[in-house]
C-alpha cells in the first residue's frame, strides 16, 4: 500500500527539498518531519514514500527513523507530551510531574522500554514520554505538548484541560 500524500503537503515537501541543492539526501529529516507532523508517526509506507521522493533505498530512510528519538514508529495520542527528564528538570520535580500527568491522563507507563518509549492513554487522547534536556533548565520542570512549550509546570489539571 502506498502513502496517499495530499497535494498541499507534497508541495510543501517539494519546496523543502529545494533547500538542498547539492544533495537531495539531505532532505531526509525535513521530509520525515513533514510526514510525521501530518500523520502523527512514520510507518513503512512513509519510509518508502520518502525514499522514492529522494531517490534513496528505503533502508537509508529507515536507519534515520530508527536512530533519532524525534521520529515515532507508532501512533501517539492526539496530544503528545514530552517531559524533560534531565538533571535540572529532575531536580525541579520532573519525575513527579510525569507521575502526576500519567495519573490524571490515565496513562500506564509500565510497558515502556528504551525502544518503546511512548505510552498512550486508553482513549487515545494523550500520549507521553520522557525527553532528554529540552534546554530550559532554569525554568524546570518543563514539557512539550505537541509543539507547545510549557515551563515551570505545577498545575497539571490546568495543563491537561488546555488540550481537549
Amino acid at each position, binding site marked *: 500500500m502506498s502513502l496517499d500524500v495530499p497535494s498541499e503537503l507534497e508541495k510543501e515537501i517539494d519546496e523543502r527539498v529545494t533547500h538542498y541543492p547539492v544533495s537531495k539526501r539531505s532532505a531526509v*529529516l525535513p521530509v520525515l518531519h513533514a510526514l510525521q507532523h501530518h500523520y502523527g508517526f512514520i510507518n513503512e509506507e512513509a519510509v518508502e514514500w520518502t525514499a522514492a521522493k529522494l531517490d534513496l533505498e528505503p533502508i537509508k530512510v529507515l536507519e534515520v527513523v530508527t536512530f533519532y528519538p524525534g521520529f515515532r514508529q507508532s501512533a501517539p495520542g492526539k496530544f503528545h507530551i514530552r517531559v524533560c527528564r534531565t538533571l535540572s528538570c529532575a531536580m525541579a520535580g520532573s519525575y513527579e510531574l510525569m507521575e502526576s500527568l500519567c495519573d490524571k491522563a490515565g496513562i500506564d507507563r509500565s510497558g515502556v522500554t528504551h525502544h518503546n518509549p511512548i505510552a498512550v492513554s486508553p482513549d487515545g487522547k494523550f500520549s507521553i514520554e520522557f525527553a532528554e534536556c529540552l534546554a530550559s533548565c532554569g525554568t*524546570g520542570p518543563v514539557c512539550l505538548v505537541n509543539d507547545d512549550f510549557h515551563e515551570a509546570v505545577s498545575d497539571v489539571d490546568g495543563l491537561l484541560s488546555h488540550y481537549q
Partner: protein
Amino acid sequence: MSAIYKSGKEPHAKEHRIIFKNVDREGWDPSLSMYETEGGYDQLKKAIKMEPSAITDEVKKAGLRGRGGAGFPAGVKWGFLPPNNEKPVYLICNADESEPGTFKDRYIIHQDPHQLVEGMVISCFAVGANLAYIYIREEFPEGAQILEKAIAEAHEKGYLGKDILGSGFDLEIYVHRGAGAYICGEETGLIESLEGKRPYPRIKPPYFPAAMGLYLCPTIVNNVETLCHVKHILEAGGEEWSKIGTPNNTGTRILCVSGDVQKPGYFEVEVGKVTMGELINDMCGGLKEGRSLKAVIPGGSSAKVLRADEVFTVGRGDDARELTIWDIPMDFDTLAACGSMAGSGGVIVIDDSRSISWVLNNINNFYAHESCGQCTPCREGSLWMKKITDRVVAGKASPSDIDTLDSVARNIDGRTICAFGEAASWPTESFVEKFRDELVADTNPELEDDLLNAEALTAAANLG
C-alpha cells in the same frame, strides 16, 4: 538608546548585556522593522564594503572563543579554511543547544533572531560561503518558525539572496531541524545529520570540517552565541571588543544557572569578571533557605564536578594562588586550571539535600541514552555506567562496584572517535574521585561476594 526591561526581568547590576541586550526588553519584538530601529543590519552594510579577510582579522584580534563548549578561537577556526580553495565553502550555525544545563540560544532565537541572521551573513561574507544552514534542535519548533520568518524578512529587504545590497555577494540561509539527538551538537555528527544520515561523528584527522566538512567541502561550524558576537566585534572593532572580559578570555558570555538556587536564570557577564560566589550568592539570590552548597557542575553536565570544600591551586610559580569554589572567576582558563571547564556556560548548583548517587545516575542515564553507538567503549560503557549507578541508587550495588564504575569510565575516555566519550565519562570520573565515600555509603557490603548480578548469571547460563 537605553533599554527598558520587563518588570522582574531586569538584568543584574553585574551583567554586561551585548548579545542579550534585547532579551526581555519592554516593547521589543523579533521583527525586522524593530531590529532596524536600533541599527539593525548596519554592520552588514559596513562589512560588505570590507575585504573579507579584514573581517576575519577583526575576529582574530577580538580573541573570540567559541561559545559552544570547546572554547576554540573562532577566528583561528576560520583561518583553517584551505588557501586557494576552489570548492564551495559552507557555514553552519550550530543551534542544537543540547548540553544539559544550557539554555541561552533559545532566548536569542526567540527574541532576537535578526541578530543571529546578521551575524551569519557577515560571517558567511568573511569566509566566502554562499550557502548556510541553521541546524536547530527539533525541540525548538517555535524557534524554527521564528527563524524562517526572520530569514524571509531579511530576503525581502535584500539582506539575503542574490547580490546582497548591491555587493555582488550571494547567500541563502536555510533552517534545518534536527530530530532529538544530542550527538548532533558535535560538529561532524551535525554534518552527517545534515547530509541526511545517522549522525555518526567523523574521525579527525582527516575530517576537520574547515577542510572536509559538509559534502566534503570546507565548512565552518559555529555556535549561535559565537556568530552573534561577530556583529558586535565589527561594531566595536576587534581591538576594542577584546578589552571586554579578561586577557585570553575576552568578551561577554551568557551563564545559565539552574538547580538549587533561589533565582535560576541567564546572566550575560564579562568573561572572568564575575566569580562563582557572586554568581550564586548575588546574581541568583543565594542557595535555598537553610541549605549549604555541596557541589557545582560549572559548564554543562559533561564538565567535571567541583566540590564545595575543595581548594584549587591555579597559576604557576610566583603567580600561583589558592582559590575556594566561591573565588573562581567564571572564565575558560581558570575553570580549566581547577580541573573542570567553562564548557557551554551551563552552571548546575547542587545543595546538601541531594544524593550524589542520584545526581550521577541521572547524568549517566542521559549519556547512555545519547551515545550514538558507533564506538564500542562508549556504546557499551555508557550503558554499564548507567546500570551500575541504577544499582547504587537502588541499594543493590556492592562497594567494589564503585571501582568498576570508575574503571569503565576510564576505559571510555580517550578511546572514542569524538569527544562524547569524554563528555560521558568525566561526570563519573569526577564524582567517583570527589564523592567516593558518599557513593560507597549507598552500596551494600553484604553484596560484595555476589559477584554476578541476576542478569549476568542468566547471561552466563545462556552461554552454556
